[in-house]
């Protein structure tokens, strides 16, 4: 069987995998999810979204560095495409978080440390896209936005992992997955579903990213042929 067949099977498998994850995420008894009850089911979607956001933005920064070093157009495409997907999943994480906030604390937005930092993260990448649209020349656009994007290597981990944990900023957000003692505090059934969802979301990102890059490559090839 050729490669196309295998990837097709993989994609169908992903469809089934995520369907099962969704079913289990909702059928799993709520009492094993801790004190938050039914609303806690959001972790199966909210955290994987945030995880993919970080992965996507990190990949984007790496390709920006690669572009600045090697100056290959394809690396710029890979950087932008990863940034776009990062923003998409960041919005998903923010919205699922707001849904959870509405159920648990009565209002979708409270400017607590986690919510505020994700807002800044979105602003950071909004600025990236504004920068790109402001530069007409393709090469200069890639260089400027590449340089800006390298900052992401510091900004993203800081905003996502460090800032919300600073004890100086007490917040509403539930204890992060890895708590203050450095342990993972989750019922094993929930953990299995959670990790499966994480894998599935990563697969969705991988497929979407590969599609985006193939489209960019097609655009380049078609332009070349003219």
């Amino acid at each position, binding site marked *: 069987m050729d490669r196309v067949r295998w990837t097709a099977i993989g*994609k169908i498998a992903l469809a089934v995998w995520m369907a099962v994850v969704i079913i289990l995420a909702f059928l799993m008894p709520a009492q094993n999810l801790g004190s938050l009850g039914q609303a806690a089911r959001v972790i199966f979607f909210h955290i994987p979204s945030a995880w993919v956001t970080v992965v996507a933005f990190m990949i984007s920064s790496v390709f920006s560095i690669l572009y600045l070093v090697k100056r290959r157009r394809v690396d710029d495409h890979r950087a932008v495409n990863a940034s776009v997907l990062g923003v998409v999943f960041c919005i998903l994480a923010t919205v699922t978080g707001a849904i959870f906030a509405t159920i648990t604390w009565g209002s979708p937005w409270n400017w607590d440390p986690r919510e505020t930092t994700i807002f800044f993260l979105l602003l950071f990448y909004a600025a990236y896209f504004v920068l790109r649209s402001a530069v007409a020349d393709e090469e200069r656009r890639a260089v400027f936005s590449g340089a800006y994007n390298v900052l992401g290597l510091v900004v993203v981990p800081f905003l996502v992992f460090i800032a919300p944990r600073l004890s100086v900023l007490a917040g509403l957000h539930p204890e992060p997955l890895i708590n203050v003692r450095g342990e993972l505090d989750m019922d094993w059934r929930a953990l299995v579903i959670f990790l499966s969802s994480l894998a599935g979301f990563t697969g969705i990102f991988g497929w979407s990213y590969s599609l985006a890059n193939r489209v960019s490559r*097609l655009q380049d090839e078609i332009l070349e042929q003219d």
Partner: protein
Amino acid sequence: MSGLLVDEVTAIFVVMAVTLVVWLGIFAYLWGLDRKVRRLEKEVRRAGNE
């Protein structure tokens, strides 16, 4: 707020069904996109070989 229109058990099934539909919709979109890209790639490759 809970139990306003349906009981909690029904509500969970509804949310699950909606989530499932959303996922299958996204999957169908990605699959269709993948097919179009594959077709375009074949065409461009053919045009490149002429």
